[in-house]
């Protein structure tokens, strides 16, 4: 983590970021739905469901250019640090924050690494499931990072973000995306209630994120969010 002090975007990162956002729009027509929160200057931790490498590209494509430039995705060092190419993509092109999922050395403590990035005034994108979800479950149980971050920096807003369809656009193991429409639903910020236990908070955060899904996979139209339902056919 040599670049901690210099987290402003390089030329390469700016070009990559604009290019990927344009590509994300061309392929998925991605559009943000602000359902409970609004774009703002406040420092934030965006937490989202994770099923595809494209997830964070889609999420950052929904942010304003200014917000995008100070928002960094947290990615696994044991995956993205594996080869020089992956490290180049993750750090030099996408300016991700790499953390170790299994760590022993205190210098590798993921929470301190993320906190140091927050303390420089940056926003983070985290995937609290800890890995790409390949199961039929809509969302895996959350790992503790979200709780620890919020305990340490209660002023930073936690924004739940439901990323729709990305697992269909770019499933695990595929490199060519199928064009499908995607939306990112940004929900109302959540915070740890006074005295709330770790597990209770993590489960509540998970439920909050799940509730944002505009089209739950159950083939049961009645349960879908009514905001997204009423059929219209006017010219």
């Amino acid at each position, binding site marked *: 983590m040599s670049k901690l002090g210099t987290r402003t975007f390089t030329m390469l990162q700016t070009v990559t970021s604009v290019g990927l956002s344009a590509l994300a729009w061309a392929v998925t027509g991605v559009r943000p739905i602000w359902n409970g929160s609004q774009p703002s200057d406040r420092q934030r931790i965006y937490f989202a469901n994770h099923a595809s490498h494209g997830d964070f590209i889609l999420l950052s494509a929904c942010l304003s250019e200014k917000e995008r430039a100070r928002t960094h995705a947290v990615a696994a060092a044991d995956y993205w640090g594996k080869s020089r190419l992956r490290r180049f993509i993750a750090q030099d092109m996408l300016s991700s924050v790499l953390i170790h999922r299994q760590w022993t050395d205190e210098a590798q403590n993921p929470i301190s690494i993320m906190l140091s990035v927050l303390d420089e005034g940056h926003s983070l994108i985290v995937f609290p499931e800890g890995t790409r979800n390949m199961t039929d479950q809509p969302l895996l149980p959350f790992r503790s990072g979200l709780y620890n971050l919020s305990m340490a920096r209660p002023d930073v807003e936690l924004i739940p973000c439901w990323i729709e369809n990305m697992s269909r656009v770019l499933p695990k193991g595929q490199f060519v995306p199928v064009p499908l429409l995607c939306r990112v639903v940004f929900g109302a910020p959540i915070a740890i209630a006074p005295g709330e236990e770790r597990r209770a908070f993590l489960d509540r955060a998970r439920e909050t994120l799940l509730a944002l899904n505009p089209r739950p996979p159950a083939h049961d139209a009645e349960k*879908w969010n009514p905001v*997204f339902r009423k059929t219209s056919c006017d010219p």
Partner: protein
Amino acid sequence: MPMREILILIVGLTAVLITASLVAGILSWRAPKPLPSTLINLNQRINAWWVMVLAITVAFFFGRHGMTILFALISFAALREFVTLTHTRRSDHWVLLGMFGIIIPFQYWLVWTAWYGLFTIFIPVYCFLLMPAITALHGDTERFLERVSAQQWAVMISVYCVSHVPALLTLEVPGFEGRNLLLIAFLIIAVQGSDVLQYIFGKLFGRHLMSPKVSPSKTWEGLIGGLVASSLLGALLSFLTPFSPLQAAGVAFIACLMGFLGGLVASAIKRDQGVKDWGHLIEGHGGMMDRADSLVFAAPVFFHTVRYFWT
């Protein structure tokens, strides 16, 4: 290029859009603030109409190339919306990629080279048989019939049917050489005009719902008023076509009736899938398919009517 007719069309369409914008502007000016959502939506819709008319006009001036590319892009947007609504599994990835990467370009290449024989059977014969075969080879049989049927429907509706619009340029109508672009203008104006006219008649006189389970806004009064008015519009536009005014009214009637059925089927699909709109591409309207559903059903029938009786 038949400049005189194109000029009349541009002046006419601009006049209609200016009238619509003026009416909506006056309504918005007199309405209580903040504006009710129906008026905001009306304004968005009219603004989107300006953009759509402008886009088609630009493509018009690029002739055959412009039209083929424009409708290939419309197919892309429509197919993307359609596939998004259907159930897909990870094993469908390559078939889905083929739909976007092979079927769309190839079908429009067939249009562009005017290869009529293959154009009419490429999707209904070859894609129809090969797509489920590829899916079967992947060995994932869960909800197999549902998946392959939805894929068939998606390419038939969004690629095959839509491609019949630019294919009008390949028809050789005696005495009408070099003017085929006007047939496209005639079809689009009649069908989209019919949508608007049905809506207006429905709002003014609509009492009896036609199919409340499918669509909350389609009424018998709207349908009949809209069809009669758009047949008249068709007769009025006969100067664009090789048809006599009476024939133009008849052809417009058939196209607009098909357009109505297209809207009905599209509504039924949306109802079944539990969504309001196909997508969010066109501000105020929803997705591409929300606007193109009537054209999708009208285009092949219009194409074959002209081909059978006039070539």
